[in-house]
């Protein structure tokens, strides 16, 4: 997950960014490296070429609607995106994000973020600081069990820890 203080540039999109944009069906039979090259190409052909580790994707309402394919999250993670900010998320995509250690931050102020803004996102504190404007946006608090999962890096490392503890 995003280490506190990590700064990333904002890539800003609108409402209803869907899973087929994030992980197009035509490439789903391939590994994640290939799928990631086509991430968001239907709405931003330059995204996969220009995004850098630590950058942040920002959407409007219902981000991630559509399929259960978690390659939609994995493609972003493959490209180094560890935080997604939106006014609201599709429920299934939201779960997939946490399961894969990518922080989904629900933020009513997502619309105030402009493309290229430098953002400091802190999922644990539930805040986003916009370095361009100086504004600090509060996010909806994640429930404790999901914060714990995010802190462990996702569901699998979280379960590994739990199973080990159970066996000990």
């Amino acid at each position: 997950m995003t280490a506190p203080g990590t700064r990333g540039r904002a890539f800003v999109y609108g409402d209803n960014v869907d899973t087929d944009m994030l992980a197009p069906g035509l490439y789903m039979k391939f590994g994640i490296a290939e799928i990631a090259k086509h991430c968001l190409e239907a709405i931003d052909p330059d995204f996969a070429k220009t995004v850098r580790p630590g950058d942040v994707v920002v959407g409007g309402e219902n981000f991630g609607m559509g399929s259960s394919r978690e390659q939609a999250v994995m493609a972003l993670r493959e490209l180094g995106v560890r935080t997604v900010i939106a006014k609201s998320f599709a429920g299934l995509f939201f779960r997939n994000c946490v399961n894969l250690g990518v922080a989904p931050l629900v933020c009513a102020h997502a619309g105030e973020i402009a493309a290229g803004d430098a953002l400091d996102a802190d999922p644990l504190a539930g805040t986003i600081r916009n370095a361009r404007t100086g504004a600090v946006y509060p996010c909806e608090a994640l429930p404790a069990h999901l914060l714990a999962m995010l802190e462990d890096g996702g569901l699998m490392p979280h379960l590994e820890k739990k199973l080990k503890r159970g066996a000990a």
Partner: protein
Amino acid sequence: MASTLALKILARASGVPALRQGEIATCKVDLAMMHDSGGPRRVKPMLEKLGVGVWDPSKIVLVTDHYVPAVDAESAAILDLTRKWAAANGIARFHDMQGICHVILPENGYLKPGMFAVGGDSHSPTGGAFGAYMFGIGATEMAGVLATGEIWVRAPGTHLVRWTGALGKGVSAKDIMLKLCRAMTLSAVKYDVVEFAGPAIEKLPMIERLVLANMSAELGAQTGLIAPDAVTRDFLAGKGVELADADLARWRSDPDAEFTRTWTFDAAELAPQIAAPHSPENSDAAAAHKGTRIQQAYIGACTGAKLVDLHMAAAVLKGRKVAAGTRLLIAPASQRTTTEAAADGTLATLLGAGAILLPTGCGACAGYGAGVLAEDETCLSSTARNFKGRMGHPKSRVYLGSPYSVAAAAVAGEIVDPREFLA
């Protein structure tokens, strides 16, 4: 405490007397369904890393539907891995190339009221048509379920969606859902539950009710429920599953249950609906899109290629021909669908009109299988989603409609109100 159907099922599955909206519950899974795309090829390495096997092979249903039949080395390898995993893990309920997972479950009587089930596919709410709480999850979360037999749920609110009256000729469950995508929008439900009720819903056969629950996914619902009734009981009896009166009485929302919102619509006023690119929300009466030329008409997927869907298409196509310059592709939702359509003469009608029969499976719906679109092509499809690039090239255009509407457009070469062909 008065409770919704959703909360009753979740309370049962989490072993508590009652749940309040917003509580986090850990539920025991009664059935876990996976397919070849999100299934073994993804969960196998995760389970190996955890060093655990599946918690209960008898609760798992595995289906190959996304990459069938194999067309290249990658898809063949995915199917091969799936078959080997099924054998190695003792999965008895493995349905290989028999149809789409959301249709395989009802066909085999695997779902019944009050069950708590997960599926590795976003259209898993389809199971809600039986009054089962079924929802879609990603592969990592499926690996978690396979390892532990449990999953967390936030106790949801319920949107009650009532349809009064009765559907007119040439209007179907698909039209109900396209209408709702516009009226309710895709972002209003926010992962709460949708429960369908009212006289128009009670009149629908099980196979049509599946469409309502299926496209609850488009409304952003975690699942879409229909309380079981005599229609449910008769359908399941045909599958060898007996429901007691107590099951029907138990699995319904209490009369004084609190709903997040109640929506009411009149089925008698509903015209055939078409959703324009690139969202199911862009729906309107078919007549409003009259004259839109199409190159492809597609009848396929869990949403729109079951036996009743093929019957709708045949009602339009009987004695007619697909227009020159338009192709009509039909990928039946299951092998049983194809067999039954062959036996009752439906297939002969479709083929006689010039339809091209594709293998059963998810096909072109999500751009995986045969029938994908070229740049600038336009398709009218009986599937559930028309996101940008979903059925092929990012610059192709997908309209959504009922099988009636798709068949009518195939004959006309352009979108029309299908009732023109159903006099």
